[in-house]
């Protein structure tokens, strides 16, 4: 797909906006590398990096994170709705977030894009955007809370994930719904959160089809979880009983991350 000049100009401005942040990120990484030779040597292996079979400290931290998953699953009430806000409170511009700079936002061609559905579902036929648009749509203005601490209010619209799972004949008693993305990001939700009335497969952001930086053509939006639990550029959805993990979760972010 060749991007239109408007999109190119916007992405260029975005690159300019986050250039200082990227520079500071690079500085941070260099600093971290340098410091690990110094003071933090004492604490290496206390940062999840050695995994759930690593140092004693890492084993305890990973085990506590799994225990916190269970506590949060128990605290999660499927009937509690995330607060919604008036349109006047929407934050603009909305931050771009990814584990890569805007240059690497995947270019996706609507004509050839298809959503794969696999795993414990009856109907594994792929979906087009047109087919998704034909399903009942839902729109909400909710608060996106990032694991870094900041938050912004935005408007997302699309198909309730519950409706989609019902239409594909998914096993709603299965444990997980997983997502694979065009940008090699991946993630997963517990089934109760996937079936929450506000969890949607978003096609729109701010009343417009998703822009590339916000996850074109399809992302999930889960207002009952931290932002990283809502993958963008979704290419495949699968239903499974085997823990699928996630891009950040496998490095140590808490998997449930409910709010």
């Amino acid at each position, binding site marked *: 797909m060749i991007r239109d000049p408007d999109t190119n100009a916007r992405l260029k401005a975005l690159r300019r906006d986050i250039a200082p942040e990227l520079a500071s990120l690079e500085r941070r990484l260099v600093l971290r590398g340098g410091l690990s030779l110094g003071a*933090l040597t004492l604490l290496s292996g*206390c940062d999840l990096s050695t995994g759930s079979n690593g140092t004693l400290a890492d084993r305890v931290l990973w085990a*506590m994170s799994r225990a916190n998953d269970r506590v949060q699953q128990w605290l999660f009430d499927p009937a509690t709705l995330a607060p919604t806000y008036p349109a006047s409170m929407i934050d603009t511009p909305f931050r771009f977030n990814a584990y890569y700079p805007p240059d690497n936002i995947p270019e996706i061609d609507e004509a050839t894009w298809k959503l794969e559905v696999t795993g414990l579902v009856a109907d594994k036929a792929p979906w087009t955007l047109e087919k998704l648009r034909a399903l009942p749509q839902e729109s909400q203005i909710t608060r996106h809370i990032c694991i870094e*601490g900041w938050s912004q209010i935005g408007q997302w619209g699309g198909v309730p994930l519950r409706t989609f799972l019902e239409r594909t004949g998914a096993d709603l008693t299965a444990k997980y719904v997983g997502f694979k993305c065009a940008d090699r990001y991946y993630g997963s939700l517990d089934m109760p959160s996937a079936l929450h009335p506000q969890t949607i497969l978003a096609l729109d952001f701010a009343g417009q089809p998703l822009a590339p930086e916000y996850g074109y053509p399809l992302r999930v939006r889960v207002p009952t979880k931290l932002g990283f639990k809502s993958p963008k550029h979704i290419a495949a959805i699968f239903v499974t009983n085997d823990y699928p993990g996630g891009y950040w979760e496998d490095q140590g972010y808490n998997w449930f991350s409910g709010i």
Partner: protein
Amino acid sequence: MTILPETPARLTVIHPLVVRITHWINAVAVFCMLFSGWAIYNASPLFPFAFPKWAVLGGWLGGALAWHFAAMWLFALNGLAYLAYGLVARHFATAFLPLSPGAVWRDARAALRLRLIHRVGRYNAVQRLAYVAAVVLGVTLVASGCALWKPVQWQALTNLFGGYEWARRVHFLAMAGLAGFILLHLALVAIVPSTLVAMITGRARVAEEPTVR
């Protein structure tokens, strides 16, 4: 202020066992919460400064959060045990009360003129205020922390703090207050090191109360 006459001293328990145990568990928990919390703050600073890299725990955001969400159980449950003991065994009533603005003013002035006498086993009014403040800050930290952890499930609590973004600020300010308390606390222990021994053994030589006050 009159100087107390020399009186025979006896070895007395000035810090009950429950207070000592919860104190040291709390010391470990607060260490973890404070330094991992600073790393989490650094991921998206609320104010135009960041904490130095050598003073943060967890290495990266994921590591810091893992420390914070593991140690929070230690901090909250230990704090709860301390609060329950303080109320049921009347530890708060006997150690922190009575407390009046007049007494705080009087003792603060005496302390600044270096005329305040350290009475082993009894807190002066400034100490009482500081310890009550530390308890209130601890409760505020747990409550605002819960508001940040579960702003959807516990939205009534989050609303009590004026919403998610205000809860972040309350959490930060309560942290700053507690950090200030800890600095003062450690400075005073450095000036009167015998208090450190007493918080381990629980015992100190206490002068007999003079009969006439």
